[in-house]
């Protein structure tokens, strides 16, 4: 295949056509029973069936994905789909891969083929599904940890909860490589978010050429930034900075990265669905753990402790946040043994709603 020339490209290109219509992408059993499903049953963490009003059944095998996928490996998946699934495949909203078949006998074959290709089945029902994450050092200039590597290290350790073991309820785990949080990290049962802890360093010589000073000043949510007319630059009040990095986003000569002090925080207890307890934000469990690539053992240890304390303590169907609601945050810190620090107290914006205004609490 040769690259199109400029002219060929111009001739060929279309604009504003939008994505292809989904109807071209649906397996026949899906197209036929669209909107007419009756119920489903989960067999194993990697397999389930949906039964239609017509009596038709579709078996789904869900397999793990590292999300960074090479074209050649995707082709291997497509081969499996061609072989067992009439040439259809799908990804989930969390980036797992789903193979669907109407033939129950194909289920173990699909599982085996995918596993052989390196993509084990799991993630369905009351257990851990994959950890959603974003770019990290692989692609994003804003990242203060790597996403894929940390996710890989954690997922290896918690693999059984994906593929075999059950938990009290679905557990949604997410990872964000900076506080921009490109995902639903802020509403996850368990999440890792990378943070800075040091005031940005300013390359004063470049500020005047590369930044709009008023924009930069107003980008700071805590008003830590003011113009520095002498230097034709800006200055930052270190007492007010809470390391959000917004100034760095709008003004390249501001550098907030600090390899020795950057790291991650662990947050817990958020959720998205409205079942039982309404959607809610994750809350701070551990304010800081240092970056320790390639396998971040301290982070892995910390999240495992939390997950397993939850698994032991929660009642059936209780999500992480519901378990914590029942035992109280004082119970959470007691049961997990995590120390409680000044960083946990929300005195930036929400002190009124988060400080305890009741004489009732647990020791």
């Amino acid at each position, binding site marked *: 295949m040769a690259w199109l020339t400029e002219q060929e490209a111009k001739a060929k290109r279309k*604009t504003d*056509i939008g994505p292809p219509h989904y109807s071209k992408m649906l*397996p026949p059993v899906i197209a036929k029973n669209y909107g007419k499903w009756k119920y489903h049953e989960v067999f194993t963490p990697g397999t389930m069936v949906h039964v239609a009003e017509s009596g038709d059944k579709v078996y789904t095998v869900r397999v793990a994905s590292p999300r*960074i996928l090479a074209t050649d490996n995707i082709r291997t998946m497509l081969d499996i789909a061609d072989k067992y699934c009439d040439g259809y495949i799908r990804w989930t909203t969390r980036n797992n891969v789903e193979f669907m078949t109407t033939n129950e006998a194909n289920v173990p074959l699909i599982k085996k083929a995918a596993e052989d290709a390196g993509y084990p089945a799991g993630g369905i029902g009351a257990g851990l599904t994959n950890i959603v994450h974003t770019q990290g050092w692989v692609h*994003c200039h804003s990242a203060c940890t790597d996403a894929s590597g940390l996710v890989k290290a954690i997922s290896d350790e918690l693999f059984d909860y994906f*593929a075999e073991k059950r938990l009290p309820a679905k557990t949604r785990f997410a990872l964000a490589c900076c506080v921009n949080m490109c995902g639903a990290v802020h509403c996850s049962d368990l999440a890792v978010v990378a943070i800075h802890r040091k005031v940005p360093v300013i390359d004063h010589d470049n500020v005047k050429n590369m930044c709009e000073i008023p924009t930069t000043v107003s980008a700071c949510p805590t008003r830590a930034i003011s113009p520095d007319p002498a230097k034709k630059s800006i200055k930052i009040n270190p007492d007010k900075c809470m390391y959000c990095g917004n100034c760095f986003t709008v003004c390249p000569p501001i550098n907030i990265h600090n390899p020795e002090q950057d790291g991650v925080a662990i947050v817990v207890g958020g959720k998205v669905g409205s079942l039982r307890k309404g959607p809610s934000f994750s809350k701070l469990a551990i304010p800081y753990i240092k970056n320790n690539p390639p396998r971040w053992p301290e982070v892995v240890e910390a999240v495992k402790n939390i997950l397993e304390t939850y698994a032991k303590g929660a009642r059936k*169907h209780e999500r992480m946040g519901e378990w914590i609601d029942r035992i109280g945050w004082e119970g959470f810190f007691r049961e997990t043994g995590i120390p409680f620090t000044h960083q946990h107290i929300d005195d930036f914006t929400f002190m009124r709603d988060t400080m305890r205004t009741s004489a009732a609490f647990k020791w």
Partner: protein
Amino acid sequence: MKKYETPLLDELEKGPWPSFVKEIKTAAKKTEAANDELGQLEKSYRDKKGYWKHGGIVGVLGYGGGVIGRYSSLPNEFPGVAHFHTVRINQPSGLFYNTKDLRVILDLWDEYGSGLTNMHGSTGDMVMLGCRTEALEPFFAEVSSRGWDLGGSGSALRTPACCLGKARCEWANIDTMDICHDLTHTYQDYLHRPAWPYKFKFKVAGCAVDCVASIARADCSIIGTWKGNIAVDQAAVQDYAKGGMDIKAEIVDMCPTGCMSYDGKNLSIDDANCSRCMHCISKMTKALKGTGEKGATILIGSKAPIVVGSLLSWVIVPFMKMEAPYTELKEFSEKIWEWWDDNAKPRERTGELIESKGMRSFLEAIEVDPQPQQVYEPRKDPFFFWKDEDLA
């Protein structure tokens, strides 16, 4: 191609979870881009920092978005990633693919790009990771000529997304995939040509389970619901009981409104007090089903924490019918955009603007009445505004 030693990354080939390092190495066999990505990433692991510059503005002719510019800060050391832009291809609704069409994209990507992808990005796009500037136009020409288009980026409408809904889920109250497709096509111009104060995202979920996390990360969250009762199949209830379900503990006691009761034989629901939270239905899907009129709750405003803390979407329209061509939804969205565009500062999301202008201005601008369903609770302080028209 250079051969990089990657002792740190090699550690991440071990273990049962699929390895992204293996993926990069697979692509690295084919492209210099993937190979240098590997080298630069190993260096990041060693130095505990990224080596990417702030994105520059790159794209395809006539579009303001769809491509994220990305340049290595070490282009001499890693020339293969000197340019390493991302191309966002708008996914088909529901993320279903036929293998034939997808293979075409993969082939093109091997030709024009790094051979590395994300299936998918967090917003929902097929993310093609690592493209040189000069490859953008021809790659776009190839894919668009095959019926694909770019997704959103910048201060524009972002690629709408949805759960798979009616395609395979018994709980879908609305046709999520069709709504998502329709919105995407109707608003192509807003999607490709950033003209707003900041980004705007739609996400569509078929029910309150919200399998696309719309309530946490969409300026407009569209969530299916119903207006009738929950129909109970008592025989199926008994089957669950026989199957070992503790109906009292798992269903009745976990109902957040306390509106269910079970006498060991019959399960009954006080529907007027049910909040349609989906707990009981999700746990006893064979026995329970929402009935009556179907439609959606429209919630507005969620976003990530930058810079004043995350927002979850707020209920604005408790119930809206959802029938193609979704005129009511579209008129509603357009009113929001108009008000937002007229009032927002740069980089101010819809939810943030509502916070700063007040809910009343917003509701009046979009012509929605105040309703108790919009709030968890009314105000607690005695300070509130009166307009002359209120002082009758």
